[in-house]
């Protein structure tokens, strides 16, 4: 791969940059549509730290999947990356993903950055056995011995708790949904990538199977130490798996922070609204609250902050100016002019309702 020309990167990353395998800066992606340009991603920025799980969450149409696809440049032809940077780092080298040529891009995909898709059946070639698909993948990147590849494939299948000898000779249709999803996971790990992107990997599965996949993901990450971008509309999966959570709204990351920070001290009115809208199963009855209005039309976006028509805190400034993603507290970024107000109200509400719970959930240091 070519070394990227040294360009200054705006950064609010903590620690040395070498610990950040993937950075996205001010990324804009549009889709051409008959009615006009669909602004799917609008200036999204985030960092993925080494060994962490970053969960991208938001409602349908918030740009999560577009963002993920652009990370490995798999966007359909109707999409157009208007501007922005995607920087990938390995061994002290930096690469600009958006300007990789075809050959480098092929090496980058899968070997450096693998993706697991939502629909596990569609991700396989139905007429190839699992072994052939796995071997094809490796052949495209490495010149390893067939026997060696087979050993690695069997090891990985065992790691994802499948019977290796049986599964490797099976066709995709012979496997159940949960098994396919696990095979896909094993395949994504074949070339030992540094980053794995998972797009709603458990959405099509039943709950008990989903649980085994979640536990498996956690175990794999501990053993192999890759970094993970986990995309899900489901807040509870973010709570379960993520180290950090990024909330997206109308194509922009509006809040990023540690998972406990996000759930127990949200600072963006949208994140707060989402948390209040989702019930938990265990525990007593909770009042739920909706966010008024409906998600924005991505062709005709509102002015200023895109959330202002639905926001309780909206003021004159929000209608005119779009807030930047700025650090609120250490490692917690938010794109809102009123975050201090949001935070204060949230704290007061918690304090009144369950002061002990707050101390347990978020011990003040």
């Amino acid at each position, binding site marked *: 791969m070519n070394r990227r020309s040294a360009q200054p990167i705006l950064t609010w990353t903590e620690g040395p940059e070498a610990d950040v395998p993937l950075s996205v800066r001010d990324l804009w992606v549009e889709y051409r549509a008959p009615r006009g340009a669909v602004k799917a991603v609008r200036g999204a920025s985030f960092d993925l730290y080494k060994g962490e799980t970053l969960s991208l969450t938001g409602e349908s149409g918030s740009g999560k999947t577009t963002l993920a696809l652009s990370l490995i440049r798999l966007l359909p032809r109707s999409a157009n990356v208007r501007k922005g940077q995607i920087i990938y780092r390995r061994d002290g080298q930096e690469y600009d993903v958006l300007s990789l040529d075809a050959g480098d891009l092929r090496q980058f995909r899968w070997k450096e950055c693998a993706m697991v898709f939502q629909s596990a059946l569609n991700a396989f070639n139905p007429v190839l056995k699992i072994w052939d698909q796995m071997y094809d993948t490796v052949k495209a990147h490495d010149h390893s011995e067939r026997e060696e590849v087979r050993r690695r494939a069997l090891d990985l299948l065992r790691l994802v708790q499948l019977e290796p000898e049986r599964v490797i000779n099976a066709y995709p249709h012979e496997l159940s949904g949960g098994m396919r999803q696990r095979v896909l996971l094993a395949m994504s790990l074949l070339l030992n990538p540094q980053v794995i992107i998972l797009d709603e990997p458990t959405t099509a599965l039943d709950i008990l199977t989903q649980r085994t996949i979640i536990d498996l993901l956690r175990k794999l990450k501990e053993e192999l130490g890759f970094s993970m971008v986990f995309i899900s509309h489901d807040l509870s999966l973010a709570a379960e798996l993520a180290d950090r959570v990024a909330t997206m709204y109308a194509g922009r990351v509006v809040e990023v922070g540690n998972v406990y920070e996000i*759930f127990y001290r949200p600072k963006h009115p949208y994140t707060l609204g989402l948390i209040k809208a989702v019930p938990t199963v265990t525990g007593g009855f909770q009042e739920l609250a*909706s*966010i008024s209005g409906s998600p924005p039309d991505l062709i005709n976006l509102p002015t200023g902050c895109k959330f202002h028509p639905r926001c309780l805190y909206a003021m004159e400034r929000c209608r005119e100016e779009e807030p930047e993603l700025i650090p609120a507290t250490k490692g917690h970024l938010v794109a809102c002019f009123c975050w201090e107000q949001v935070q204060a109200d949230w704290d007061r509400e918690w304090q009144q309702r369950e002061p002990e719970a707050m101390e347990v959930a978020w011990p003040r240091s």
Partner: protein
Amino acid sequence: MAEKLIELDHIGRTFGQGKQKVRAVDNVSLTIKERDILCLVGESGCGKTTTGRIAAGLLRPSEGRVLFQGQDVWAMERKEFKRYRKAVQIVHQDPYASLNPTHTVYKILSAPLLRHNLVTNAREARLKCAQLLEIVDLTPPGDFLDKYPHQLSGGQRQRVSVARALTVNPSFIVADEAVSMIDVSIRASLLGMLSRLREQFGVTFLFITHDLALAKHFAWEHTIAVMYVGSMVEIAPTPQLIDEPLHPYTQALLVAIPEADPHLTRNKPRVSLRSMDVPSLLNLPSGCRFHPRCPRFVEGLCDQQAPDLVPVGDGRYVACHRVS
């Protein structure tokens, strides 16, 4: 004591013919009282939609009886049957598919009104439609009456679906995953609107969902019924079912569900199942359908004999050999 409105009496339903038979629902019984909410919970393929369609009279059960106010629906006279059909309405899952895209909201809502002679002329129909839209919080109604479904958001469409169900003053609504396709941020207001219908108009609900958290929220003072591959495994008042589930499947389900609270979800106990595979409806296990996965499986009992749904006190019912 409220009257029984709908009763399913040992119903079963088989689809297909010859060798390819699918037993979608098997030996399911349940009772819904007037003004009550029953949440039917289960994973995809467990037969909850089939059960809902049978309760709504859209499907005829292969076995068993459906009783509406004590009368067998499929043995009714034509006139009686029509009354039952009018009293029962269904709200479908997908608001993008359930509204005719070539009709305006007014046309969608006025059709049943005119069909059942609930209004005499167009002016009255328009007035009634406006009232219905107000009930489902689409205000001002004038803004919505002449719109086509494609001009509305998913949440608004689903409100129109509910308004359409309300046109004939139903006493019973089957809501089949009615909020599952709606964005989380606006789900709560739809649920609130549905519970208000129960309070204001005394509508009884069969609320079908795969989401136990949603069921718990909607039916907190009512009942949840849990299904697993075509059979009923547990019925209980909501708080008891959540706090102290009796059936091993319900227990496994409750601990497996991730929660939108990091502390809570990461400190949940684990239940290890004996198998991860959901049985196929084409090849059902013998005896109890959960036995190949059940952690409390007893050989010679669970794999031989299918347990009946039996009352265990406090309005609870469980189908398990190991409970009682």
